[in-house]
């Protein structure tokens, strides 16, 4: 039997928990390939879910981390386009088939392995997600909702208590649900991920506390449950949904709208209506008017109003606000329809479990997903949540070892005393650090590492489980100081061993400063939720807690200011006051004549009401407004009502908008915006002369793969070439140009921070950013060659000031001489996309299909965005954002011309007359360095440009090296007449160019002397620019609003790319194949873990010299 299969199937835990990496490393390549075949047969045959998933992840790991290092002939074997398409469409099994056919014909290769890895990983996660979904649906109490698809069969009715009112003209009673949020004292290394709990229930343990909150902003407000949900019957046959904190309200009259999650900000409320059974999931697609259902639910002519409020907690708080909000709304809906035992007060345990299960269902419907501890706010106080083994009768029995839903043990006062609870409250400072975060990739990394049982992470997991016992013992003993030590040790130990990216420079700076200021009275740091930077805890000696709160607020503000150019922040940091909530979610019935919804609700809805004819308003609504008027005179909470109504009716934001427009104008002027060119681009866009479809070369273009000899591969062994390179380096003939003008929109999903300054990885004991890394490599090259290498960093309007400041603050990261900044000289103004381009991007181009429910949500969002583009005006200026988010760099073609125009090249040549070559590279090409052999090749080939290419793998999208109508050149992905062509090209462009300065100048019809003539340079640049194609692209841009809320909009911009220089017949270009670790680029944070594990990080570190 296969060794790896037996690891999976063993009944012996010691064998089962063995690491695949160790086993694979020992095997010969042929044996490893045999194991792959055995694993592939095994997963197809096995009926056990987790055996299947583990086999799939083993296959992923072998293809991702082991086979590429073996001698497979790295440069042969292309990934077939069919496989890529299947992969994107999530048709994994077909993708595997199509790969297998190619492998059979041409043997294994690194490229094929890269595709296998992606497919197996996708298949593993899909299998897991499908199982969680099936389990949610099979929880008892949820089945009926997937059966009842017709309003005639609708079985729910509103409780009579909610229909009892004094008279026909009074409003109905209001059911109010108040729900705390939860924080976790430890999650035992993300053990609350559903997949982990279901596979390893004994390791899934979380200490979870329900808390009330108040944001500290001078006034000392009393902490209260941060979440409230309200439900009442209304005299209109509609579903009225209102989110007070998101400022959105709508009346729903059709089933289709209920299931349209992304059309407004009310997706979560809709998910709650569905998951609570008020509109059962099976009614999606029902064609009857919603009225028919509402009639059965609440009576003829009546409807339901659901409103939600989150008090002052920003998004990304790591306190599971959205899950608990969902649970709160589900609870109120279930109470109202008699699906729970209690109408008011806390919930019974069985009802809590059902609400939690429904919340998971709701999260899935809404296309999101949390952990199983997230609905902890439904339960009271402090509890231990543990995975539970599946037993006979459980829907998971025989499928997974653990149940979907964990067991909750709520600690009594005997177990954790009142004093201990008070001590925790007296010491803990809860904060939101303000960082914008995407915790999704981290959860995926954790799952993968866990299922692979990588030895280091597996040990860390055991340690993390122990930390929980320790914290629990400390809690029982009331020793908060020890809790602080344990949680901090957990953060720096197990958590970061499992996922280094759970920490970041910002968090560590906060900890360092807290310790620096408070010394031994700072008892420890505590990471909340999936990663640090957002919700966090700092534990202080109670005597200094107040001071700690004030100091943390100041420290966070200052640290944010220092780092905000480099790290995406969603909001200003805040400090909370908190209290343990000992009730869990509770409800009360407000049936008095003076009972109203909260003031924020009226501030939002009354302006809309004022615009309707009073005669058309239901009598109860009028009576409610009367009560509101009275309350605004007599009740303190409503006393500011009139003022806030005025503010909303006549927004004062116009002034602000005006100011922003002016700033945008100033920016445009300052950075050399060309309004004439802009108008011509707009006209071309509107007329359809340019656009995404027009980026493409004519279909008649002949595009072929390279021929033998087109790409130089065997240069590394060539001592002569190396010598030539070394001599040039020693003679000071080379400079490095790092391109840092772009925002790196994929890195932060359009957050507009400087990617070059993002402290992305830990090297030599510290978090370091991209520039620091590149300078460290130049330092090494300088030391080795004995000559200082000049280093140019190109910048743009967005990146110049932050980079200049960072370099000044760090004395060029210790790289003392010859670091020059080359500021950009060209910007564009972003445009609202045309519908034509949006359709092209979303409908014509092959793209990643998401899982079924997410796909629906995305579809709905896209419809909304198309609507937005149409309403805002296609191809009109995009100005509804911060000014810096409205303008864009115009592509890296301009970076070298900028050096000509801004005098940097001239300056460089004056300082270094012997300078002949530039090595230009992207900021995220971490493995690039001044390799003498490559330089030697460039010199020996007498090339104007030598381009570094890598063998294409499955993730390498965006053009490559091709023979275009017979001529060898780089071709941009956007320019390829069909997507399929890309997959016939063996080599992918790394965007690293070795440039011969004089030959390049000649292409501009310039020489060194001419650089002094600004006018001539400008004309030369303009002339060559005219020969370069402009590409229209869609980019995501974030718009921030509210409390940490973010919307992402697609915007149109244009760019010119340096790759097109290789199309110039007068430039002699050479192409060199470089290893992947040198040529790969870090485009998304999700790549970091693989980059660390496959040895790339180590390779990069070996190129750097950190001695300062």
């Amino acid at each position, binding site marked *: 039997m296969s060794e790896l299969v037996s690891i999976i199937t063993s009944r012996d835990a010691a064998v089962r928990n063995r690491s695949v990496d160790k086993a694979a490393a020992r095997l010969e390549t042929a044996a490893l390939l045999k194991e792959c075949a055995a694993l592939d047969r095994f997963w197809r045959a096995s009926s056990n879910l987790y055996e299947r998933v583990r086999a799939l992840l083993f296959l992923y790991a072998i293809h991702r981390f082991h086979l590429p290092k073996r001698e497979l002939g790295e440069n042969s074997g292309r990934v077939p386009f069919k496989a890529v398409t299947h992969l994107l469409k999530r048709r994994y099994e077909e993708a595997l088939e199509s790969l297998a056919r190619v492998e059979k014909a041409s043997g294994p290769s690194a490229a094929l392995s890269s595709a296998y890895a992606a497919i197996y990983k996708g298949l593993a996660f899909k299998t897991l997600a499908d199982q969680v979904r099936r389990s949610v649906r099979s929880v*008892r*109490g*949820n*089945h*009926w*909702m997937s*059966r*009842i698809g017709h309003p*005639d*069969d*609708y*079985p*729910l*009715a509103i409780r009579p208590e909610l229909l009892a009112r004094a008279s026909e003209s009074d409003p109905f009673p209001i059911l109010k649900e108040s729900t705390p949020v939860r924080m976790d004292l430890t999650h035992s290394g993300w053990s609350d991920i559903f997949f982990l709990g279901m596979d390893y229930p004994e390791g899934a343990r979380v200490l979870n506390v329900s808390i009330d909150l108040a944001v500290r902003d001078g006034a000392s407000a009393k902490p209260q449950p941060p979440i409230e949900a309200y439900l009442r019957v209304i005299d209109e046959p509609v579903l009225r949904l209102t989110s007070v904190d998101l400022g959105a309200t709508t009346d729903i009259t059709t089933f289709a709208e209920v299931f349209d999650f992304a059309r407004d900000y009310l997706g979560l409320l809709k998910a709650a209506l569905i998951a609570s*059974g008020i509109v059962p999931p099976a009614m999606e697609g029902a064609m009857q008017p919603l009225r028919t259902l509402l009639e059965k639910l609440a009576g003829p002519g009546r409807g339901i109003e659901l409103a939600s409020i989150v008090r002052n907690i920003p998004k990304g708080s790591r306190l599971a606000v959205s899950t608990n909000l969902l649970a709160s709304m589900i609870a109120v809906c*279930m109470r109202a*329809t*008699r*699906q729970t035992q209690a109408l008011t007060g806390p919930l019974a345990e*069985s009802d809590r479990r*059902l609400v939690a299960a429904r919340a998971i269902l709701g999260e899935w419907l809404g296309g999101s997903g949390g952990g199983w501890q997230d609905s902890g706010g439904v339960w009271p106080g402090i509890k231990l949540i543990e995975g539970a083994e599946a037993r006979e009768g459980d829907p998971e029995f025989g499928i997974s070892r653990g149940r979907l839903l964990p067991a909750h043990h709520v600690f009594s006062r005997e177990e954790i005393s009142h004093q201990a609870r008070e001590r925790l409250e007296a010491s803990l400072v809860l904060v939101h650090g303000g960082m914008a975060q995407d915790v999704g990739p981290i959860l995926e990394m954790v799952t993968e590492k866990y299922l692979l049982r990588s030895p280091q992470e597996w040990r860390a997991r055991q340690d993390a489980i122990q930390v929980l016992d320790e914290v629990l013992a400390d809690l029982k003993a009331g020793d908060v100081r020890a809790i602080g030590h344990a949680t901090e040790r957990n953060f720096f130990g197990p958590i970061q061993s499992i996922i280094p990216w759970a920490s970041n420079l910002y968090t560590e700076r906060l900890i360092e400063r807290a310790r620096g200021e408070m010394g031994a009275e700072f008892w420890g740091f505590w990471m909340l939720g999936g990663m640090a930077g957002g919700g966090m805890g700092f534990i202080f000696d109670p005597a200094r807690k107040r001071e700690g709160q004030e100091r943390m607020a100041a420290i966070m503000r200052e640290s944010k200011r220092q780092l905000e150019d480099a790290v995406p922040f969603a909001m200003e940091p805040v400090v909370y006051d908190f209290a343990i909530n000992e009730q869990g979610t509770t409800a009360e019935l407000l049936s008095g004549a003076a009972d109203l919804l909260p003031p924020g609700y009226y501030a939002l809805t009354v302006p809309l009401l004022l615009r309707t004819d009073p005669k058309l308003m239901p009598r109860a609504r009028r009576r409610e407004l009367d009560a509101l008027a009275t309350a605004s005179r007599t009740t303190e909470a409503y006393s500011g009502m009139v003022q806030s109504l005025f503010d909303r009716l006549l927004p004062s934001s116009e002034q602000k908008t005006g100011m922003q427009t002016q700033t945008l104008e100033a920016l445009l002027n300052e950075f050399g915006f060309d309004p004439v060119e802009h108008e011509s681009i707009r006209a071309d866009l509107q007329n359809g002369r340019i656009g995404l479809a027009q980026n493409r070369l004519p279909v008649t273009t002949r595009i072929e793969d390279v021929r033998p000899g087109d790409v130089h591969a065997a240069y590394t062994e060539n001592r002569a070439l190396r010598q030539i390179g070394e001599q040039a380096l020693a003679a000071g003939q080379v400079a490095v140009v790092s391109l840092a003008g772009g925002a790196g929109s994929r890195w932060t999903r359009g957050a507009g921070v400087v990617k070059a300054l993002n402290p992305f990885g830990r090297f030599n004991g510290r978090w370091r950013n991209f520039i620091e890394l590149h300078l460290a490599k130049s330092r090494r090259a300088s030391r080795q060659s004995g000559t200082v290498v000049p280093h140019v960093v190109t910048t743009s309007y967005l990146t110049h000031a932050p980079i200049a400041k960072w370099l000044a603050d760090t004395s060029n990261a210790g790289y003392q001489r010859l670091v020059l900044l080359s500021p950009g000289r060209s910007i564009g103004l972003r445009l609202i996309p045309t519908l034509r381009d949006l359709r092209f991007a979303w409908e014509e181009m092959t793209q990643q299909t998401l899982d079924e429910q997410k796909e629906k949500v995305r579809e709905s969002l896209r419809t909304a965005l198309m609507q937005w583009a149409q309403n805002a005006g296609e191809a009109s200026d995009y100005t509804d954002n911060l000014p810096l988010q409205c303008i864009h760099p115009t592509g890296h073609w301009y970076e070298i011309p900028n050096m000509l125009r801004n005098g940097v090249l001239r300056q460089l040549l004056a300082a270094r007359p012997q300078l002949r070559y530039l090595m230009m590279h992207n900021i995220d090409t971490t493995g690039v360095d001044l390799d003498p052999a490559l330089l030697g090749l460039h010199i020996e080939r007498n090339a104007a440009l030598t381009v570094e290419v890598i063998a294409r793998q499955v993730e390498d999208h965006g053009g490559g090296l091709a023979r275009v109508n017979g001529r060898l050149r780089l071709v941009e992905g956007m320019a390829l007449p069909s997507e399929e062509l890309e997959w016939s090209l063996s080599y992918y462009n790394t965007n690293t160019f070795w440039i011969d300065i004089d030959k390049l100048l000649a292409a501009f019809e310039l020489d060194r002397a001419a650089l002094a003539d600004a006018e001539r340079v400008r004309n030369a640049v303009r002339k060559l620019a005219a020969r370069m194609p402009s590409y229209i692209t869609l980019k995501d841009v974030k718009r921030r609003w509210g409390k940490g809320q973010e919307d992402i909009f697609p915007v149109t911009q244009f760019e010119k790319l340096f790759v097109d220089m290789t199309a110039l017949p007068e430039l002699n270009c050479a192409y060199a194949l470089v290893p992947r670790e040198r040529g790969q680029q870090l485009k998304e944070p999700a790549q970091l873990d693989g980059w660390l594990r496959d040895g790339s990080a180590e390779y990069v570190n070996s190129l750097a010299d950190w001695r300062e």
Partner: protein
Amino acid sequence: MKIQKAVITAGARWQRTLPLQSLIDRDGQERTVLRILLDEVRRAGIDEIAVVIPAGDEAEFARAAGDRNVKFIEQREPAGYAHAIHCARAFTAGQPFLHLVGDHLYAGGNGVSPTERVVEIAEAEGCTVSAVQATRETLLSHYGAIGGQRVTGKPDLYRVTKVLEKPTPTEAEQELPISGLRAGHYLCFFGMHVLTPSVMEILERGLAEPGEKITLSAALSELAAREQYLAVEQTARRYDIGAKYGLFYAQLALGLNGRDRNALLAQLLELVALHNTETHEIGQGA
């Protein structure tokens, strides 16, 4: 255990006229609902019958019953269904009794009388027995429903463990699953029980407690925890004459199960055909 007494409840104010309605029975004779029920009880061999009625309605009920041997018990206050049963405690006098609700009629069942079947089982097993029927989850809000296990070897018998009054599907799925039923079906009350004296005791205690009044379902749920309690699944159909078109459906069911079946079918078909022609003509005109 021998069952000698029966209690029919017709106490609810809002349904006070229901048992007085006249229908044409299986034999083509005009009889009141009450009369049909009384005859059904007699078929099971029970002669001592009491009917619980709203205060002051005795004359009308006596006329509808057309039977001097029936005892009428007045429910003086409209205090609910459980209270109505409890009003008959002096009549039942510590003996088990058959109980029927006054707003249900029964038809079908291949000639087996549901009353006879319930009494037969109660006498054989010596415990409380409720007649139940598999009912779609969409109708749960009208009935009490039971949870329990099948009795081995007796395909229509269930040992009851839990009773819920008008559960939501959510509750029913969690608390009342029964193996062997169609998806989304639960065993709901049929309006027919044989109740032991323990039930009266539980009701007595429950009604004496302050606050929300006990329901028969709650009393039976308590009973299930204390002693053997069985349910028998009926093949006959119950017709709730208090529901919308209830009386009409009950009449149809009786008619189609009786000697006028063919005449009734012919009449129905004619109605349908006529209706369709009219719609068709109207459709063409438009």
